[in-house]
Every structure is written in C-alpha cells, then in structure tokens.
C-alpha cells in the first residue's frame, strides 16, 4: 500500500492502529510500523501530525527490538538445551527430530 498519496491525518490514524495492534503480541506489526513511517516521521519537512507519528514510530521500534532480543535468546537457549531437557524438550517441540537425542 502506497502511503504517499494519503493525507496526513489518514497517515496518523494508520500509524496509531498499527501501534495499538502490536500490543496483541504482534511484534511484526511494530516492525512494519517502524519501517513504514520512518521516512514520514524523520525525513519529511515538518507537518502537523509529524510529532505524534514520530512518537509512535519510536515506540514501535523499541517494542520490536525488545521482541527481537527475546526471540533470539529463547531460540539460542532452546537449541542448546533441548536435548538435555529430556521430556520437556520433546513436549516443547513441534517436530521432534529423528535419530538424534
């Protein structure tokens, strides 16, 4: 969707929807929000709604980064320890690998 042709207040509404939507455990919405509206928030000449859009973009960015850290650490912990966790490891796995502990 090309937001170039939207009016500024529609942009604000869209940004706000994505920001609130991300709280429903949807970090991808925050990631997209941050990238999509970053140009409008920081690199365009000043317009009325820019301050609020900038706020949303910054907060979405922070939220997405926190989720990224959580995902990466959990993946590392799980991959390293799944074999030694025995039954718990198998119960947490969607596809249990064949032939290896």
């Amino acid at each position, binding site marked *: 969707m090309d937001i170039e042709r939207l009016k500024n207040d529609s942009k604000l509404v869209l940004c706000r929807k994505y920001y609130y939507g991300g709280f429903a455990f949807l970090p991808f919405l925050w990631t997209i929000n941050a990238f999509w509206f970053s140009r409008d928030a920081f690199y365009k000449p000043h317009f009325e709604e820019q301050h609020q859009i900038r706020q949303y973009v910054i907060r979405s960015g922070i939220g997405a980064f926190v989720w990224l850290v959580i995902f990466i650490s959990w993946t590392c912990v799980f991959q390293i320890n799944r074999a030694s966790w025995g*039954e718990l490891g198998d119960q947490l796995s969607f596809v*249990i690998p064949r*032939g290896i502990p």
Partner: protein
Amino acid sequence: MANILNVKIFLWLSFSVIFLANGLNGDRITEKIYQRIDEGFSCFRRLNGTHQIGCSSSQSGNVGVVHYLEKKADFDWLLETGPDAPYVVLLPPDLFRREHLMTLKNSGKIAGVVVLNQTDTITLRNPAPKPPYSNDLTCPNKITGLYKEDAFSSYCESNPWNPAGDGLLFEDFKFPIYFINETKLNQSCYHKFNRPIEGTPPSYPLCAIELKAFMWAAVDTPTCLRRGRLNMMFNPQPSEYCDPLGNVNIFVPVLAANKSDGPVANRSIIFVSARMDSASIFDGLSVGADSAITGMATLVAITDMIYQFKSNIRDGDIQNVFLVFFNGEAFDYIGSGRMAYDMKNPSQSPLIGLEHVKYWIELGSLAPQAGTKVYLHTDPKSRNETEVDTKVKDLINILLKNRGNLTTESVDASIPLPPASLQSILKKDLSIPGVFISNHKSAFTNQFYNNEWDTFQTISSYKLSKHLAEVARTVSASIYELATGKQMPSNFQVNETLVESTLECYLVNANCSLFNWLLNGRSNLAAEGVLPTYVGVSHGDGAYKALSLRTRHLLAMISGETLDINKTGCINSDHNEIYHYYWLGESESNNASGTCYRSTVKTSHAVSPAFEIENYDWASGEYSSWTESRWETFSVRIFLKASSLQAVSIFVFGVVVLLLSFAVTYWVETNSVLLFPASPEAVAC
C-alpha cells in the same frame, strides 16, 4: 528459397541418420554414476531402558573413500598417513574385532565399516573367522537374570559363561556397519583406484561408497516411546520412532484340557522348554545353530516321543506335560519373562499358573562340539529350601538313571545357572524344581554364541542328529518315569529322521521338502538360504511370521490327530480354546490330497511386560526393555569421487562464468544500437 529448403531437409535427414546409427541409450544419468550393491546386511539401532546400541548413518547416508584393511599393519597406514578422510573401511571377518573397531571409532577418520565376506576362490566356501568369536556380553542377560544382588552374582565375573564375548553387540556406533557378501568392492573398486602404492596415497579420482542406514530413534526406550506418542498430536504424518521387540511363544499342552476334568491340581504339570531365537549385529543374519536350534530340534523330537505315550501320562499324579518354545530369549528373556509374568498374574483366561508347575526341564545348546557329554545344571538359590532340593535331586536321579547311551554329569549344586529361560521362571517362583541341560559345564562350548557365524557350517558333524536324538530319548524316558513311576518300554523310539529334517530346514535350506509339505506347497520364500531366527518386532500377528508359522505347523503335524474331514470342513472348523485345526500336506497338483490335523498347539504373545505395566521403572531391569528403531530403506552404492579441490574449482568457475555473463549481457544491452544495425523491415515499421 528452394535451395535453402533443400539444404535444411538434407541436414535434418543426415543428423537423424547419425543419431539412429549410434543407437540412443536412454540411461538415466544416476545409473551411469552410481552402482548399487544389494547384497548387504546392515547393523541397526536398538534401545533399552537406559541406552542405545548399534549403528546409524546420517540422513543422507555416510560417504567415504573405500579402503581395504587386510592386516594389522594397514591400520597404522590408515590412521597415520591416510589423507583422504573420511574413509569407509573394508574388513575381512577376522579383523572385525573389538580392539580394531574401537581404534577406528576413536580415530575420527571413519565414516563407516563394511565387513567383507569373500568366498575363497579355491574352496568356494566362506571361511568363518577364527573361533571362538562372540559379540554378546561375557555374562549374557545379566541385567534380567536371577542372580542380582546375592552370593551368586559374582560367579559370572570370575567364571564367565561367554569368555569370548566382546560385547560389540551392545556398543553404540555413530557410523553404519554393513556385512557384504561379495568381491566387487575389493576388485573393481579398491584394487583399481584406491590402493596406495608403496605407502604413497593414491591420487584422485578415488572410489567412494555411500552407506545409508538412518535410524529414527535415539537415547533410550522411554524417550523413543514418548516421542512416538507426542508425534501423534501435531505431525501430519505421525509415526512411531521405535517398536518393542517381540514375537510369539509356541506351546503345546500334550493332553487337551477338558472342562470336565475339574480344576488343575497344584504341582501337577511338567514343563519342558527350549529357546528358538538368536541374535547378531546385522539385520537378517542370525541363524543360532547352537545357540538355539539344537535345543529346539531336540524338543521337537521329544514332542514326537511324548505323543507316543501320551495315554500313560495320567497314570501317576502328573496331570499334563507342557512343551514350550520361547522366543526373544537373546534379549533379556523376552518370551520367558512374559510367560512367567502371565502365569503369575493370570488376568486373562484362566491359564496354568506357576503353582501348577511340578518340574521344569530346559534344553540349552546341545551340539556335541567338545565331546558328547551332557551336563545338568541346577539353581542353588531354589535348592536352599530342602523340599525343593529333594525334588531337584529326584529329577536329576531320574535323568541320570534313564541316560541310556548318553554320558551325563550333574554339575555341582553350588554353581548357579547359566543364562537360561529357567532363570525368568525362578524369578517369579523359587519353589519350582528345575534342571537345565546343556553341552557345557563352565564356559560355553558354542564357539559363536549369538553371532552371525553360528551356522550349520560351524556345528555340523556326522554325530549331530544322533546325539540330539539320544538326548531326546533320555528326557522323554525321564518324563515317562516321572509320570508313571515305571521304566519306559523300549518299543518307544526316537524319530531320528525328524531331527535331521528339522535341522536341515532350520539351518541349511528353508525351501526344504518338510516346510513345503507343511505349507501345502505354498512356501514361497524369495531368497535361498535360511530363515533368520531374530525375534523381530511385534507388529502384526506374530503367529503368521515365516518362522513361527512353520514351527507351529511342524508341531501340529507331530502332535495332532488326523481327522477324516475334507479341506473346507477343516478350514472352517471352529478354532476354540482347546483345539486348532490345520490343513497340511496338500500337493500342488491335487487339491483334495491333504490331511486335516487337530492339535493343541497354541501361541502366546511374547512381548515384554514392561510395555504394558503402568509407570514401569525402565532402569529396574526386571523385564526386558528392548526396542528396535524404525528406519527407511537401507542402501549401499559406489561411485568415483573427485577431489574436493576439483569440485570447488569447478563450482568457482561456474560462478565466475555466471558473473561474466551478467557483465556481457549488460554491455551488449547498452550498446545494442551500435552492434546490431537496423534491418530494413524494422525501419519500414
């Protein structure tokens, strides 16, 4: 215009002629690269309550450069110099020993091992490795035996029953091991391409081999069972990771139980048992000639003799005689453990319980390898009780009294039982007087216990069937005297030809005339050779597996009474708890030529109770906990391998050509106006 057309037609015709003259060969490229080897037996993974044993390859197969090790010195070359790791090592059977395998395993340079069984070109036989050789433990079935934390548990440490056992069967390898029966590998693969000349490594291209034997299960039995269960929930193609080992036990109650006889009296039944399974590292390669079949063939002869005097069994206070063939004994007593469990907890039909057993006679290895003496072993734990001790002494005396031409010796009472199914029975009830009859006093005389080389070739001798017949006569005469109190009349004879045909069918050729007769000429076995006696896994109805089916029919023929009904009547007869009906002996040409036998032969499920008890403690060693991993197809193929340097350089060249083609295309695109002058048609457009 016509000129150009003529030229085109001429060119087309000439090219067609050239192609057809060459004979187009529609081979797939894979066939030109790889050569399959189908005559291989693979090592596979088994698991028990706490460990995994056996071998597995990676999912796409293990690839290695072929190297043949003929003598010990070759090992040093491979481990120190060999630059083309990983290798797949070819070993003659004599070098397939624990110390060599451990050296190879620990070197990290090995991707697989192939045991190459080459036929000697002069004698045209496959020479067995130097005896004795066994891959089982020195104290087989120690974990589920009768002697665990008592005075007798250390007996086996100082006097091992299987001193030649190196325990390879229970070792865990991370690479595949194959047993291959042919010489192509050595001649056309190794000798042609891979032989180091005077110690210098051979140059590429080298002959390489891919061994594929990917096992699904890992860690141990409770893990793979749990994974199979969890798998069922989310996976679109759920499957188990492993299956419990199991088959059927076959037992024959000599006298049919009649409801009108009333309940069975305590201590009134004599049991005679033997084992019918064996094991080896390789799948499909276990015969167990002396480990199992000698005892089994003797029990078949005993069955035949007992039926000759079955009307006399009830003369005394003995009510019945049960003849049992146990399966799965090589893996921690699966069959006998299950039967003892069923007899102790009769939850299903009111079968015979352990309290009804008066005597138990078990037949072990009986081949006359180190002389024809036969030994009678007893269990010292049960003989601690004077009552049991007296009965055991009675049993031994009667056996010794009836020995006839056999030389027998009763082993000292303080020596514990060797590995025997009797141990599982005594575990549940120590008041059963039992005797184990075998051909060894201390260490096994079987040179290849539970091994792929325990075949007819290594036990055959002119006196084998005669000796087994003698043992059968002794035991039958003793049973006669135990039942009636009198000497067995000499008109009851052992059927020695029956012993010979049994040995022939189980040890030499499974397409024998006896099996053919038993299966009405429809014994359609694909391969030449012998049916493996490995217990296998328990899915499907075990009673119909190849070996169990033939054994059941053999016993039905020996023990059954012939009835005068036709084929449809026989097959449609009601199989009830007491009798089963078998239609045998039909010849292919004549549909009406068979006979109907009504016999009491039955099968019982021989799967370890560990898989059916709730919350069983897998580390306890009370019952067998063996499972076998599932796998996809095995495959072995050889091909010529280029050096990695060559492969990488070809790849890099390809990438360079790709990038160059981008550059050239871009340049041609931008300069297309200069390169391609406008044609008249385009200008007109």
